[in-house]
């Protein structure tokens, strides 16, 4: 029997439902099978013309239809599907009656090019100013676009569809958003405000402007051919991340509430930590102190020591700077263990799902714990000699895994880490 409270006297937070979607496919079974087989979901973009772009591939989710199409619409639809999957597994509450709050990690929302072009065409003359666009926007013809492009629209839709309680929170901490959504859920349960929380993260923003924005910051891989080989975490010839779409949903519950209703426990969120880096808008502090502090805070929050972590699900974006920084900071925290703990980057296969990544990778970490098998980091042909991680290269590895650290670092100095375990400590 495990105590319902952790060593700090807080309710233990467990996972009782998970749903996932990536460029590899829909659902846990399909994703896991392809992930451990080392399959890549990265392909040449077909959703829009790629002429004139430096990067022409991405991990798009093309098997979900949204009409009329928008990135926010795709984010919403993916979030709905993964939430459905998570709720079916958890068997919690009743239909459209989830007994807790929603924390949603979602990409920032704005009017998109298809809608902007529709306005441009509606002006009806070849010479116009922005004022002309503004003047024809009213009158009710485009009222659906107002609702679609509210920042809170995805959360409002999910809250109404699944009957979550209270005010749903839409959040962004850039590439750490998914981890932050889980952290908010953990904190709400630990405070005793709720017995359950729905944590969802989604990102469907592979569109021309998003690709151009990251491209102009020189953040993306340009190794377009073959697209499956573009994402090369920890390799010497890595040259940037690959944009990708996906979503993840987790049902969190207090251990006490989950066991009381006889729910199957899929894993434990043993620790969460975050720490801001105030060095630069896109670069980490050269001394790595904020990331080191983030990992240490997470270990402390879990009441664990580095030797108790037996796998690291790395942020591993495959940008030259991130992977090097991640090794250096991990070494500072874990010492020599940093070269012995198996490390993998799911982004080698599914790409960087940006706002969703923290949740997607937490779910892959929990599946790793369940299957006692670590998915590979593919495209690991030429290891970077300065990154001395024990990278699970190219082939999945069976291993005894009891505790995983999952890291997420983002623009704006956002750092967040999670520790996931099979059983309550």
């Amino acid at each position: 029997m495990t105590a319902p409270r952790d060593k700090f006297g807080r309710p233990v937070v467990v996972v009782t439902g998970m749903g996932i979607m990536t460029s590899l496919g829909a659902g846990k079974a399909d994703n896991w099978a392809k992930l451990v087989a080392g399959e890549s979901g990265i392909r040449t973009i077909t959703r829009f013309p790629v002429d004139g772009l430096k990067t022409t591939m991405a991990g798009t989710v093309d098997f979900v239809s949204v009409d009329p199409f928008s990135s926010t619409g795709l984010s919403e639809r993916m979030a709905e599907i993964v939430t459905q999957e998570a709720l079916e597994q958890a068997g919690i509450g009743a239909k459209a009656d989830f007994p807790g709050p929603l924390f949603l990690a979602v990409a920032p929302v704005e009017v998109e090019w298809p809608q902007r072009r529709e306005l441009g065409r509606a002006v009806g003359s070849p010479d116009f100013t922005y004022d002309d666009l503004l003047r024809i926007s009213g009158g009710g013809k485009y009222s659906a676009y107002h609702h679609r492009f509210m920042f809170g629209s995805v959360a409002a839709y999910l809250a109404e569809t699944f009957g979550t309680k209270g005010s749903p929170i839409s959040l962004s901490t850039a590439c750490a958003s998914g981890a932050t959504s889980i952290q908010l859920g953990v904190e709400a349960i630990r405070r005793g405000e709720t017995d359950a929380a729905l944590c969802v993260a989604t990102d469907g923003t592979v569109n021309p402007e998003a690709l151009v924005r990251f491209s102009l910051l020189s953040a993306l891989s340009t190794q377009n051919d073959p697209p499956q080989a573009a994402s090369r975490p920890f390799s010497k010839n890595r040259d940037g991340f690959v944009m990708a779409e996906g979503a993840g949903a987790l049902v969190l519950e207090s251990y006490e509430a989950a066991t009381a209703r006889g729910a199957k426990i899929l894993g434990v969120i043993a620790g969460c930590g975050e720490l801001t880096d105030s060095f630069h808008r896109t670069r980490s502090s050269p001394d790595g102190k904020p990331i080191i502090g983030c990992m240490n805070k997470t270990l402390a929050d879990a009441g664990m020591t580095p030797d108790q972590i037996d796998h690291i699900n790395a942020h591993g974006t495959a940008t030259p700077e991130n992977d090097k920084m991640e090794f250096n900071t991990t070494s500072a925290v874990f010492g020599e263990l940093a070269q012995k703990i198996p490390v993998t980057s799911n982004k080698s296969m599914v790409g960087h799902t940006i706002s969703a990544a923290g949740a997607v990778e937490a779910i892959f970490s929990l599946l790793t714990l369940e299957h006692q098998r670590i998915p590979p980091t593919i495209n690991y042909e030429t290891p970077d000699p300065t990154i001395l991680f024990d990278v699970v290269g190219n082939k999945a590895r069976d291993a005894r895994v009891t505790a995983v650290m999952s890291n997420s670092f983002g623009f704006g100095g956002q750092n967040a880490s999670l520790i996931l375990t099979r059983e309550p400590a």
Partner: protein
Amino acid sequence: MTDTASKPGQTEVWITGIGLATSLGEGLDANWAALQEKRINVDEKGFAPYIMHPLMPVTFDTQIPKKGDQRQMEAWQRIGTYAAGLALDSAGIKGNKDILSKIDMVVAAGGGERDLNVDTGVLTAEAKGANAPGFLNERLMSDLRPTLFLAQLSNLLAGNIAIVHGLGGTSRTFMGEEVAGADAARIALARIGSGESDIALIGGSHNGERKDLMVLYEFGDFNLKDKFAPVWARKDHAGFALGSAGAFLVLESRAHAEARGAKPFAKLSSVVADLARRKQPGDMAATLEKLWAKLPKREGKGAIITGATGAEPATSEERGFLKGHADFPVRSTGTMFGHTMETQFPLGIALAALSISRGALFPPNDSTGTEIEMQGAPTQIVVVGAGHWRGEGMALVEAVS
């Protein structure tokens, strides 16, 4: 159950710093003076027929000393970073590395301004026949400023505040229009109340001088046009006038504040929020009533500061709710400051705390009778924030006893 209310034995949370940069001015005295004089800064011409409340110009250098930092931001981030600096100054913790290295930040943000010349250039070229498959890609690749993206990202308001003011604790950005401001206060209060955090910086900023935002709200016919009127006098001429403002607050546990000798403006006793379905008339008013009932008991001299937008049907629903509590004098921040979206709720808390600390509610500015005079010093002010489309929040700000 996602509410935050003081429970017996739970930590008391003080408001120890307020930073305001608004259409009425910079700092607490300038804003208070304008409120006393019922002075509204409204621009009916610059964006005609749309009405807006422009930022009273500030010298950004005083809070954002590096020009390089200012260049990396668009207006909404500069306003917010500026106001955040004022809040840290007000709390007496500006430059205090010990405290700033652990302060928790919860920011309510929308997104940044677009480059209207780029957008218009693409659309007019397409209207003239540019239809090569890669046309949009090529124009965006060559015309977008590389750093513009960082000025647009929602979480980069918090990022810039961290960089400019040296904040090194935690940083979370909430989105979702008006109620994001209430949720930011709600989560920060819950974390301090439960001992997860000692001190937090919360708030938001908004640049209303943006035609791209006006397009978004024009889709729903939400923009106030032609002529300014107080929020309560817009029933047959509905809409909101966007406003520019930054509003930040330092929230702190009583023990943390007392240990460093900080004085409170007021205490933040409770923040509650919900999402009314708003399918039927009365849904939103019912949710406001439910939130009102969840606030701790009001026994003192009370008032209400609301962020009612002027948009319909939300404003009429809210007016119905307010009529049921007519013993509470009402003030509308929308009339005085315009609608600052994510920032309106933190602005409401700021004005509630300021009114309590100055021993008077600011005067009414309304011809419809919704706002009435108040005699004496308020000791409890309820801040109300009902979104123009979705989301309802409420907070109770009280005098420290």
